[in-house]
C-alpha cells in the first residue's frame, strides 16, 4: 500500500501520562512520529495533539483506532493534506557577521517575508510561519551559506476543513 504523510488530530482529557500512551501506539508498530504538538483545545480541560507520521492508510487507520481506545482519549482521527488547514512555525538563528557579509541572505529573508525578532552583533533570529515545505525550503536555502547556528520547528498544527465539529457533537450527545 502507498505511504502518505498523515496528520492525526487527537483530543484527550488533560491527564499525566497520556502522551506516553499515545506515542506508544506508534512505537509498537515501529512508526516514526515526524512531528508532535500538544496544546489546549477550544474546550476547557480538553487537550489536543497534532501528530504527523508516514504510513499506509490501513496502518494509520488501525493506529488511530488503537489511540481512540485509550481511556481518557476522547477522539482520534487522521487526515490527508487536503483535508486540513495546517501551519507551523520555525526559528532560524543566524550568525550576524555572516549575514552582514552576504547580502543574498538578507534577500532570501525578505523574499520569505520572515520577520527578524532579535538581532545583535553575534547572532540574528529569524522567524518563519508557513507550511512544512516553506519552512524547510528556507532552512535549506540558509544552510547553503553556512550561517545557520540553530534551527527549530514547532511541528505541524492543523484544523480540519470540515464544517462539522465532531468533538462538540460528541460532547453534546454525551450530555443528553
Amino acid at each position, binding site marked *: 500500500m502507498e505511504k502518505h504523510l498523515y496528520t492525526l488530530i487527537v483530543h*484527550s*482529557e488533560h491527564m499525566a*501520562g497520556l502522551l*506516553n*500512551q499515545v506515542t*506508544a501506539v506508534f512505537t*509498537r508498530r515501529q512508526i516514526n512520529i515526524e512531528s508532535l504538538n500538544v496544546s489546549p483545545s477550544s474546550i476547557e480541560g480538553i487537550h489536543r495533539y497534532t501528530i504527523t507520521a508516514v504510513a499506509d492508510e490501513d496502518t494509520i*487507520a*488501525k493506529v488511530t*483506532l*488503537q489511540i*481512540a*481506545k485509550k*481511556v*481518557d*482519549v*476522547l477522539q482520534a482521527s487522521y487526515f490527508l493534506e487536503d483535508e486540513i488547514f495546517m501551519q507551523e512555525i520555525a526559528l532560524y538563528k543566524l550568525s550576524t557577521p555572516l549575514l552582514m557579509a552576504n547580502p543574498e541572505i538578507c534577500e532570501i529573508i525578505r523574499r520569505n517575508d520572515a520577520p527578524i525578532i532579535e538581532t545583535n552583533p553575534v547572532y540574528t533570529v529569524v522567524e518563519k510561519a508557513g507550511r512544512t515545505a516553506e519552512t524547510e525550503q528556507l532552512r535549506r536555502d540558509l544552510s547553503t551559506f553556512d550561517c545557520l547556528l540553530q534551527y527549530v520547528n514547532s511541528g505541524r498544527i492543523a484544523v480540519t476543513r470540515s464544517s462539522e465539529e465532531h468533538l462538540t457533537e460528541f*460532547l453534546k450527545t*454525551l450530555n443528553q
Partner: protein
Amino acid sequence: MKKRITGAEALMQALIHEGVTTIFGYPGGGIMPVFDALYDHREDFRQVLVRHEQGAAHAAQGYARSSGQVGVCLVTSGPGATNTITGISDAMLDSTPIVVISGQVGAAALGTDAFQEVDFVCITQPICKWSYQIRRAEDIAWAVARAFYIAANGRPGPVVLDFAKNAQTTMVDFEPASLPIQRGFIPVPQPSDDAIRRAAALIDNAERPLLLAGQGIELAGAQEELKQFVEKTGIPVGCTLLGLSTLPSGHPLRQGMLGMHGNLAPNVKTNECDVLIAVGMRFDDRVTGRLATYARQAKVIHLDIDPSEIGKNVPVDVAVTGDCKETLARLTKAVHPAEHKEWVESFAIYHTMEDERVVRPAIHPAEGPLKMGEVARRVSEATADSAILVTDVGQNQMMSARYFRYTRPRSIITSGGLGTMGFGLPAAIGATFGAPERTVCLFVGDGGIQMNLQELGTIMESGAPVKIILLNNNYLGNVRQWQELFFNHRYSCTPMMNPNYELIASAYGIPSRTVAARADLDDAIHEMLTSSGAFLLQVAVEEEENVMPMTPPGADVDHMLPFIDSSTPTEQWKSTFIH
C-alpha cells in the same frame, strides 16, 4: 456522610462499596498500612495469602473468569508490583477484569530511586486498560470507583492502582464516590440500524454461513442469545479456545474448536463458507493461520465491543460494534428463519476423518501408555461434563480443551493470548473462590506446575479444593513436539528431570496418587473427585505424544497435519521452517 479515616481504611471502605469479597495478596513494606487496615476487616473479605505475587494476579484472573466479578490483587511496591506484570499482561490479552493495587513509596520520595520504588504506572501503561497513581488520600474514592468501572465495563481488562504510602496513612474525609459519565471511556459503542440491516441481509442470503464464537459471548453473558440466533438461522458454530463453553458440547450446530489444534471440520469450512460471522473474537493468529489465505472467499461480519478489533487482522464487510448480548438479539429478530441442512451435513465427513485418525486413538487407545486425551475425557465424564476446566499452557492445555466437554457457561479458564506457563495452578485456586459451588479441575504439565509450584502452599492454607491432574510426560511437551516436527528432532532443553510430586504434595498435606496403568485410571479419578478438598492426580502419560491435528504456524488454516502430508511441505512451509 463523610467519615474521617486513614487512606488505607478509605481503600477498605471503597472496596466494600464495590462489592469486593475476596482479595488475593501478599504484604510488604510499601503496602503495610493497607494490610494493617485489612486486619480489622477479616470479616468483610476473604484474604487469600498467595506464595508469590504472580500467583496473586493469576488467582485474581481465575476468580474473575469463573465468577464474572472483578478480581482483586493487593501487593507491595517494587518487586511485589513487578511480579504481577505477567498476570496483568495475560488479563489484558484475554480481556479479564482485575484490579491490581500495589504499594508505592511516599509521594515525597517518588523519582528518587527509593527502596522498592519502581515506576509501576509507566511499566504497566502498555499492558493494562488504565494505570493510575494515587498520591493523595482525597483521590481514593474517585480512583477506586473509576478503576472498577473501567475494569468491568466495555471490553473487560486489568487496571492498576499504584497507592503511594503517604496517601495510605493520611487522614481523609471519605465517602464512596459515584462516578459521573467518563467522556474519555465509552464502554459500549452503539451499532447503527444500518449495520444490523446489512448484516441480516448477508446472513439471509448466505448459503454456507459459519459463526465463530469467542469469549466475548461469555463476557457479555450472551450464551442464550447465541443459541437462539444459531437455532433460528441454522448456522454451524466453531468456538475459539476461550469460547469453548459458549455453546454446550453436543449441540447439533456446534462443530468444535477453531485454530491450530482445533477440529478439522470448522477449520476446513472456514475456507469454504460464504459468510463468516465472528462474534466476540479477535482473529488471533492461532485461530487464523496464514491471513493471506484465511476465509478470502467469505463476506465477513464482525460483532465486537471493541471498535479497534474491527479489521485489525481480517478485512470486515459489515462491522456490528456493540455488546453482543444486545447485537445478537437484534440480529436474531432481523433475520429470517433458515436451515442449512446440506451445508451442516457437509461437516460430518471431516469429523469422521478426525475421529478415525485422531480422536479415537487419543481417547480410546487399546494399548500402550496412558494418553493425555483419554485422561481429559475420563475426568470430564466423571464430573458429568459440568466441571470448570482450568488449564496451564502447552500440550496439557490443548488436549484437555479438545477432549473436555462443556455443558455450562464459563467452564474453561486458560491463558489464551499470552500463553502463560504457570498460569494454571494459581488460576485454579482463584476459580475455586469465584465458583465455590463447582468442581474445578486443573490440567497441568510437569513444566507448568513447577513454574508456580509454590502455590501449593496457598492451597494448603486456604483449603482451595483444586483437583490437580498432572499430565507428566517428562518433557516440555509442546516445545518438544515443535522440535520433532519442525526442528529435526533436536530436543534442545526439553527433556526434563522431575521431582517426586507425591512427596511434594504430601509435604503440603495434599493427598495424591500416581497412575500409570489404564486399568487404574477410573478408580483414581473417582478417588480424586470424591476426596473432600484438593487432590493431586499424577498421570504418567506417553512421553512423546503429539497434539493433533495441527495447523503449523503460518500455514493455511485448513492445512492440518496429519491430514496433509508433512513430508511434502508447501512453499510457505518451506519459508517458515526450512530456513
